[in-house]
């Protein structure tokens, strides 16, 4: 199965982004493909390398970057949603790239399933 993943919630303050990360890792571990992970709405905060949670807390930004590097995951941040929230190349975490909403639509066209995370 080939999945497109949509993340629309920030890394802290909700469970959706962490669940998306866990889903992506588990799906690939079971041999599924992830066409792309697209970060939209408040989900763009998952790509902010300036995030610095206090010691001992989860750091989803770092974990996305790690999963992206290990598994060649395509992590794409919406340029408009990012711009509205101060997310740009200057503070983009490793492994993410900034592009347009067309990347979300294309991923859904190419994938078998879209799995959105974020209420």
């Amino acid at each position, binding site marked *: 199965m080939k999945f*497109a993943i949509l993340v629309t919630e920030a890394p802290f303050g909700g469970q959706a982004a962490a669940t998306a990360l866990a889903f992506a890792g588990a799906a690939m571990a079971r041999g599924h493909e992830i066409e792309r992970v697209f970060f*939209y709405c408040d989900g763009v905060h998952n790509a902010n390398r300036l995030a610095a949670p206090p010691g001992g807390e989860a750091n989803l930004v770092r974990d996305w970057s790690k999963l992206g590097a290990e598994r060649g995951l395509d992590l794409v941040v919406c340029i408009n949603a990012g711009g509205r929230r101060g997310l740009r190349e200057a503070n983009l975490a490793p492994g993410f790239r900034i592009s347009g*909403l067309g990347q979300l639509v294309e991923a*859904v*066209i190419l994938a078998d399933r*879209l799995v*959105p995370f*974020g209420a």
Partner: protein
Amino acid sequence: MAATPAAPPRKPKTLAFLCRRSPWGSGHAAEMLEAALIAGAFDQEVHLAFLDDGVFQLVAGQRPDLLGRRALDQGFGELADLDVEHVWVERESLAERGLEADRLLLRATVLDRRAMAELLARMDAVFSA
């Protein structure tokens, strides 16, 4: 030598965008509409569905300029240009909020909750946020 047949064109997908939040309390309404408009440019079968508090997006006469927000009207106006022809609104969501279908600022087909569920069940992808 026979020419290699071209790959058959990929069948357009059915994509539904759910608008279920009030228009100004968050950025969801604007960003969901933005996404639906982009999808409309990809020659897919795009559906826009208003339910729950999302039906408040369709109330005419709103003044978001007083909040420093941009009206959704312009985006609604672009829907038809981008071939987003399937616009739905849920009957129960309207009734629960005292709204009437014939006074909405966008022409939408009214569906009851069961029909809305059936519509969404046959979509290839449902975008919610």
